């Protein structure tokens, strides 16, 4: 036995399925006006650290390598100058002069006093 309410619904569903309105020109125009390609969201640039920004200023790690080499060379020349550098210094500034802070005979005097 069929349910009359179900039959009514089935008729109604069939009737509604036939409803297919044609989009108005106005609606089509509105839809096309909306059809703007959204800008793809790009990932934000990562925040660079202070060290990295300082490195950027001087030219990056290769520049740091050069600076370290130059510094070490300067330090080495200061600690153990080659003979050529000493000669050059002497010729520019004059002979090397040693200055003592004690008199030469102070030890002798102390020794004499102790013995005597």
């Amino acid at each position, binding site marked *: 036995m069929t*349910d*009359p*309410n*179900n039959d*009514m*619904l089935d*008729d*109604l*569903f069939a*009737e*509604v*399925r036939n*409803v*297919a*309105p*044609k*989009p*108005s*020109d106005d*609606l*089509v125009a*509105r*839809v*096309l006006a*909306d*059809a*703007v*390609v*959204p800008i*793809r969201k790009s990932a934000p640039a990562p925040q660079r650290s202070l060290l990295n920004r300082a490195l950027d200023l001087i030219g990056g790690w290769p520049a740091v390598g050069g600076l370290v080499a130059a510094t070490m060379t300067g330090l080495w020349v200061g600690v153990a100058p080659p003979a050529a550098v000493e000669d050059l210094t002497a010729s520019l500034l004059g002979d090397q002069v040693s200055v003592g802070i004690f008199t030469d005979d102070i030890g002798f005097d102390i020794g004499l006093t102790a013995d005597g």
Partner: protein
Amino acid sequence: MNTPSDPFAGAPDATLLVAFANGDGDAARLLTARLLPRVLAQATRMLANASEAEDVAQEAMIRLWKIAPDWEQGQAQVSTWLYRVVANLCTDRLRKRRGGVSLDQVAEPEDDTPSVADQMQTNARMQALSDALAQLPERQAQAVALRHLEGLANPEIAQIMDISVRSVESLTARGKRALADIMAGRKAELGYQDD
């Protein structure tokens, strides 16, 4: 609406969507020609209100344009995705009706239409069905509409609603029974013979 000649003839909707995302204006026109009629029809059948259906159709298409750059070919069919979006937008509207205010805004047929009486009766029936759908739980309303108003098969509805086929069967069965109960009292008013 003029249908532009189709340089993408036979191409899937997803291909057109990618072309649109790459800035092809023709792809947008072709997608609109292909998809808007079906989107508008689905919204009209659920809402029985021309103005609301147009708003829903426009909103669904806006969402399609927005998702275009992120669309992954092969993830889902564009039509499946659109069915879901329209169904959700429609149930959102139906929920607002549930406050008890029935929107009798079905477009009136032009007076010189020969079948004006038939058209008015169809409109009244659609309105009654839409109001009855508004009284169902939203998932039931969506399943019933997709099954009986769009004529889709249960596996396709399962994909659209992201549920199992068994759940679709349960939702449509319960929804249809509830609709029949709601509509029973309006049978004579809507011109159905009681036999």
